[in-house]
């Protein structure tokens, strides 16, 4: 309990750490529940997967927020690219290990989620186990995992800041020269 309180406190003061739900990548109806899986990034790429699920009671569509949810990933086909090194913060989520999905993960509190590690491009499965009212519902979602983008593609707006800053400074110097 104290650990939870500490984690909650840390997350409350570092709120940028929450991820959002992403886009729906699949929906399964089983045992009177509808499980919708959201993922980011879309298309899904090798690396950390921000996975969230929405659980709803059928047929009322009422969102379920008090279920115990665990998620895991498993590679089901051959790799279609080079393995990817995971960042340290999601390294504990090894392939096949079920991790608890929590509401703290996403901004949208109807979702519960976790980071999962997709270490290689290829075909994968996300398994969601929902413990609700004494029963356990399993939902399996196939995923096609693309190779990760080059970091330059992801971070180019930030990398452009240095040349942009230099250009602005040069422009400023030109303005000053003209005004004197």
């Amino acid at each position, binding site marked *: 309990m104290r650990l939870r309180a500490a984690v909650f406190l840390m997350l409350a003061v570092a709120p940028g750490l929450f*991820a959002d739900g992403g886009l729906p990548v699949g929906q399964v109806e089983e045992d009177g529940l509808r499980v919708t899986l959201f993922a980011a990034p879309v298309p899904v790429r090798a690396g950390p997967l921000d996975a969230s699920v929405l659980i709803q009671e059928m047929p009322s569509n009422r969102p379920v927020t008090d279920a115990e949810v665990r998620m895991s990933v498993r590679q089901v086909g051959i790799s279609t690219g080079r393995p990817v090194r995971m960042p340290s913060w999601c390294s504990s989520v090894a392939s096949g290990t079920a991790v608890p999905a929590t509401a703290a993960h996403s901004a949208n*509190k109807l979702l519960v989620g976790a980071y999962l590690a997709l270490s290689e491009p290829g075909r994968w499965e996300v398994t969601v186990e929902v413990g609700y009212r004494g029963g356990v519902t399993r939902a399996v979602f196939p995923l096609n995992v693309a190779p990760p983008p080059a970091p330059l593609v992801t971070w180019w707006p*930030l990398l452009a800041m240095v040349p942009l800053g230099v250009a602005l400074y040069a422009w400023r110097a030109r303005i000053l020269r003209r005004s004197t």
Partner: protein
Amino acid sequence: MTPEAVLFSWSFDPVPTVGLAVTALIYWLGWRRLHRQVRTRFPVERLFSFLAGIGAVFVALVSPLDAFASWLLIVHMVQHLLLTMVAPPLILLGYPMLPMLLGLPRWLVRDGVGPFLSYPPLHRLGRFLVHPFFAGPLFMVSNLVWHAPGLYELALRSPGWHRFEHVCFLGTAILFWWPVIQPWPSRPALPRWVMIPYLLAADLQNTALAAFLSFFDGVLYPTYEAAPRISDLSALEDQAGAGAVMWVPGSMAFLIPVAVIAITYLSPKRRRRPPEPSAGPRDVVPPRRAFDLLRVPVIGAVMRWKYFRRSLQAVMFALAAVVVLDGLFGPQVSAMNLAGVLPWTHWRGLTVLALLVAGNFFCMACPFTLARDLGRKIFRGNRRWPRALRSKWLAVGLLAGFFWAYEFFDLWESPWWTAWVITIYFAAAVVIDGIFQKAGFCKYVCPIGQFHFVSSLVSPLEVRVREPEACASCRTHDCIRGNESQRGCELDLFQPRKSGNMDCTFCLDCVQACPKDNVGLLAVPPGRDVIADPRRSSVGHFAGRPDIAAMVLVFVFAAFANAAGMVAPVREGEEALRQAIGPAAAGWVWSGVFVLAVAVLPLLLALVCGWLSSEGKNVLVMAAGFAPGLAPLGFGMWIAHFSFHFFTGLLTPWPVVQRIAREIGFGAAAPDWNMPGIAFAGLTGLQILFLNAGMLYTLWVLWRKASAFPARRFPVFLPWAALATLLYLAGIWLIFLPMDMRGTLMMP
């Protein structure tokens, strides 16, 4: 829908949260000054209006509106209305231009944005952008184009495009509302009555679009059809509801100002009060003093309390004692021991963050100082520090040695060694200051202190005199000599001639000693002292101090070498070498490589740059003068690196504390060693930002220093800029590689 879940669905996305908080703070700082000077022009209502506008943007971007915007079009429409109809007029009613300028640091306004603001073509561009004939159509086109299904879907599926859509909405809305509000001191381009047809035209467009959404008999945006249904509304009903939201509240936002303008325009003119004497924007700017942390209420009083520093040191001393005890007697697994997690992850991260936002606060709270004072009481040493050692060369060697030992002995992996390093450090402080007068340990020995001295060259706070004139009449010089109740500066920094943070431990002895209360903790433009390179008390010119230049170079290159030691390609190379020639030989080879990278290569490169930029004359002076210019880049790399470890391993001490509490009988909970890292997908971006800031600052400092040679500005600048660019690219490469969390259980 579950109401609690909805109410708690706040994202607190750091970019809008921090950005809006900083904007509000800057406005408040400027408004506060204007409110004192021209209360009628800047009453409290202006502040409330601006803050309400910022609050509306915050609610739109961070609240549950954003979390549910991709599930319900009605919610998304409310979010857009806040961005286009509510926030912009409220922000503009705060007359934000002058408060925002006055709220920024003076040097930034004068040297940064000032030239652009006074540039006539940009003035004309600004007037054009807010001209009703441009701003009105732009707002309407933006509104129409972004509601086209293709673009709307694109924004729903891509966070980047979604953010761009919001920027378009807010940006064009501010331009649109500008001529309606006409914030002071801008002047209208057209007669006031033109605003009536202007607003009505916008309302017409809004009504047409709203009617289309309301009455269209198909779902325009497929995402909402596929979204989970969490309410009783079908996708089509949701779309019609969104149209109604756009129609009714949207129209009101246009029609209420129309009514106000019409009534004002048609009402008989009342005699206005004569304008205040200081009506122009130039006249209302009051003079201001530099920010002084010691004059901030409460904080200043606490910091000036005589026992403040001693209390900080006592806390740090107690913490160090616990770390040493755990390191010596606790489990010898780094991740399970305080000596493994606290010194190498948290202490380093916190000190560089303090250096970034304030200054050298670690030296202020240094626990070794407590030991030094104890050594003095025991040994009563009164020898003078040896003349031959009165330079930084010993400290340069110790700093490089410290970095080498960290890598060679894998200090992060050994709590026992870490505890001994801390203990030896205490012993050295006691012995050295027990034998010698003043602060020889801090000034000439302590590698941690040297690290902080170099880092604090770019810190925003500096211990310096408040009013130089007051020092002119001073004959006692208590700040350096001390008096009966307070010792003076032990590092021989004479306040009236002190410049920059080099050698300053933020001990505040001079603050306590000054009888005129003329020494403060003042805000300064970071890096200013490096550019000007004045003759500093006890330090002199940097250009005449090759020892300081060498220290800066070791500091800078070690930042990159230390980070490189934690990435896969370097670690794999290390492992391959170990396999090939055996662990002992490989260790020595890597030591050689490390010494080359941290000591030999930087000195050679600096001499080459000095030679190239000086055309072969005064090479050493040139190298020594320009090398400190690389300090911001080095600091940027250190903070990029340490922030990664600090944020990722933020929670790692918790299970260790649980373990210790359990062992000493204060807690029963079993430690959860599987503590998750803080999942911070944007951490790489933050690291790049730190490195970018360091790089830009270094380029600026180097350019300003090169400007001292007007005839050869570029030839002087280019070699150093090339060196900085190479280091920057190496830093980016390192940031892109996954980095090990050494000393924790978060190994990939």
